[in-house]
């Protein structure tokens, strides 16, 4: 009896898994794969911090549908992204294109890094000057010799 129920359970589970795989892959695995890859690069405008691939918003579903149809129509990824940015702007891209308006976004961190390096090198240079070896004058040398000669404990007294 136990064995029978276990077998039944396994059958049910495998059917469920098969069903799920079928749903996930849709009718054309190649199309779905491209859709997933593309929609991971795109922002859902309703939720803003989710990708189009993850979002359950109505608009995200519509846009995925639109992209799926465009892929089937033989459009390239570039054409599809152009289609979307024409309508929703660069904001839809998680990786904005390099244009004059996004120069600061792309190169700003490197600018900060360069500025930081310049400041660091200057600081090190300055410190090197401060702690560089200055030879003792003869007076200082004499005083040092006196202190050493006076022996431990005596000088403090």
């Amino acid at each position: 009896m136990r064995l029978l129920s276990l077998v039944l359970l396994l059958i049910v589970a495998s059917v469920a898994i098969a069903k799920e795989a079928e749903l996930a892959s849709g009718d054309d695995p190649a199309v779905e794969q491209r859709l997933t890859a593309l929609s991971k690069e795109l922002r859902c405008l309703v939720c803003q911090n989710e990708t189009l691939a993850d979002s359950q918003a109505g608009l995200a579903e519509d846009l995925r549908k639109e992209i799926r149809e465009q892929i089937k129509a033989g459009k390239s990824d570039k054409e599809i992204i152009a289609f979307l940015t024409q309508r929703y702007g660069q904001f839809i891209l998680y990786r904005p294109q390099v244009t004059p308006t996004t120069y600061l976004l792309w190169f700003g961190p490197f600018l900060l890094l360069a500025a930081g390096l310049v400041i660091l090198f200057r600081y090190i240079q300055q410190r090197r000057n401060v702690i560089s070896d200055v030879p003792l004058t003869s007076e200082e040398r004499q005083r040092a010799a006196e202190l050493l000669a006076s022996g431990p404990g005596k000088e403090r007294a």
Partner: protein
Amino acid sequence: MAKYLIPLVMFMVLVVFLAIGLTRDPHEVPSPLINKPAPAFSLPQLKAPEKTFTAAEMRGKVWILNVWASWCVSCRDEHPLMIQYAKSGAIPIYGLNYKDQREDALSWLSELGDPYVLSAVDEDGRVAIDYGVYGAPETYLIDQSGTIRFKQIGAVTPDVWTKQILPLAQELNRQGAK
């Protein structure tokens, strides 16, 4: 002395940037469609499904396209203002009924009043995608040549209407009359 002022100055700069950041609404994404031709469409009308409405029909007029839906909560908030603006007769307001059920949309209009000259039905949201709609209500001001001149994402407020939409429409009408 100056050495100790540097962190303070840097902190002040940061505060200014953050303060500016707080005043901006992250949901308002600048539309790339401003000063671009309004996408063409041909859609059935809400009250007369056998008739179509096309954006091309509106050539030569300054008009407003207001995206709405009966399921959209902010549209309900905006609605009384739309009725008021429609009554003023300043600019003809056309509706784009976005991903809605016809019965729901019709009962919404009969319950709350209909500010629209007519509403076009965008059942699957295709036209809305062309217009870059991502949060209804959205409002477009379109000029005589069919160019989008202004876009409001979210409900139009009296402030936006009197300070931006109305003056812009009047200016466009003046230019068009010449």
